[in-house]
């Protein structure tokens, strides 16, 4: 699928919009995408991804979650990465990268800019924070999509996946977000370098 785009793998459906926008930022598009249904499944399949990445470029995205530091995590789960492999860790979750475009996030959620965290990489649980922000949203219908009902037992609302993917694809600006999130900035640089090394043409 090289000719048709770069191969990507990520943890869950709600990462899909972010991943595709990020790849688009590099001037290419997504080829095959492996949605892994959670981090344990992604790690289980990582040796195979790494093997395939000896022949083509792979962007794999995971969350740091409660781990202490990203380099430790990477060296533990992927001791010898192939040439084409870029395993990128969002600190602490991909929602931090989305929150990092603060203006667009505030505009989308309908909250004051001051409420959107200035250092999203330092949040313990960015997803929870995003949903909390949505509770203060001026937009009732968006709020009902993002915020769970009292007895749902889930961290997010019924339309969370759809809405977060729409935000990522239509509004989010990775280059602006990278100024606020160091882990996103490192991810973009590393992905760009992988593409350059592999000789894939970049449009910008």
């Amino acid at each position, binding site marked *: 699928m090289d000719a048709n785009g770069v191969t990507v793998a990520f943890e869950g459906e709600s990462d*899909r919009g972010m991943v595709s926008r990020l790849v688009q930022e590099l001037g290419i598009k997504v080829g*095959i*995408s*492996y*949605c*892994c249904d959670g981090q344990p*499944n992604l790690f*289980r*399949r*990582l*040796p*195979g*991804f*790494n*093997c*395939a990445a000896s*022949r*083509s470029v792979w962007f794999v995205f995971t969350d740091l979650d409660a781990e202490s530091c990203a380099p430790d995590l990477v060296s533990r789960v992927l001791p010898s990465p192939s040439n084409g492999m870029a395993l990128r860790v969002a600190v602490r979750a991909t929602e931090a990268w989305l929150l990092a475009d603060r203006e667009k996030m505030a505009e989308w959620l309908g909250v004051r800019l001051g409420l959107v965290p200035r250092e999203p990489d330092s949040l313990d649980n960015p997803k929870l924070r995003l949903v909390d922000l949505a509770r203060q949203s001026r937009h009732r219908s968006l709020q009902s999509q993002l915020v769970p009902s009292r007895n749902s037992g889930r961290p997010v609302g019924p*339309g969370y*996946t*759809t809405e977060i*993917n*729409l935000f990522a694809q239509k509004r989010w600006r990775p280059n602006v977000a990278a100024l606020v999130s160091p882990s996103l900035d490192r991810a973009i640089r590393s992905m760009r370098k992988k593409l350059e090394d592999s000789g894939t043409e970049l449009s910008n």
Partner: protein
Amino acid sequence: MLQITHLTLRNWKNFGKVDVDLQPRTFLVGPNAVGKSNFLDSIRFLHDLASVGGGLQAAVAARGSVGRLRSLVARKYPDVVIEVSIEDREPGRSWRYRLAFAGSETARIKEEEVWEGNRKVLSRPDNKDAQDPERLAQTALEQVTFNREFREIAEFLASVSYLHLVPQLIREPDRSIAHRNDPYGGDFLDRVARVNKRTREARLRRIEKALRAAVPQLSELRLEQDTRGAFHLEGRYQNWRPYGARQDETVFSDGTLRLIGLLWAIADGEAPLLLEEPELSLHPDVVRQIPLMLTRVTRSPAGQRQVILSTHSMDLIDDEGIGLDEVLLLQPEDGGTSVKPMSQDSEAGWLLQGGSRVSEVVRPRTRPDSPEQIALF
């Protein structure tokens, strides 16, 4: 036992070119509307050619016209071609049948050939066809007077069966279109009734036993005839009354009826069985057993019965015994849908060795471009 070991298609429906090996168990996977049913239909077409009351013109008419079954990608080479290799895997006997036809409303044969091993036993058009071009409206396969030398494969193709049960048609056969050999199950109970009593009862007992795993409350499955002569499938439901109550197919669940139909079809006959989404209405843990059951039940002293099925169920293809050569991936491409065994995808092999399951490799490859649009409806 004879099997179809290779299928070649040109300009058949949404396929431009297909050239693919078929295994004793073959799983067709791909996005919606990519042509899984059309792939199976090419084999059904050969069945229709060879069966009683069938023939080329009837088979084409049943599908509209030549124009409607010719692929839209057909340009320079407008003929529709279907070619099958038929082999008895054990003693190594082999046949090859090739049919090329064109036309608009009615079909004209451009080429019809039969090989037995390396020996060509039929090659048309021949001299007689040149003298009487009307002959090119009929295949040799459908004519008993011509197919003597290869009647074995005519009979083989005629005995291929196809199943896509619609539970509502089993319950209300009056709704069905065909009252004989209806693949959607309109004549299912009559078909069960046509089998001689001993075989039927033995088979129903086996089905009941297998069924108990999925529908434990159902027992004593048997066929009964009502006062009007209509057949009914009856079983005892343990949970309805303390000692159970006999119920007939009108109250069986969709899943129960589909599973009964599937088990019956598998036990009925030796020629290849074509199945359309056998997973429908079934619990995923039941679905996971389908490939294992297919292997076990279709094996007899005469060899393995061939089963070719289409599926969207990732549970169905996840058994670790399913080989990559058994999974055919259908993907839309510019020149028509392509069909390739997963074993030709080297990346797939690595991913499996590196911890992925078959479904996890297949799923992204059969995913529509942006199914999330559906949520935005």
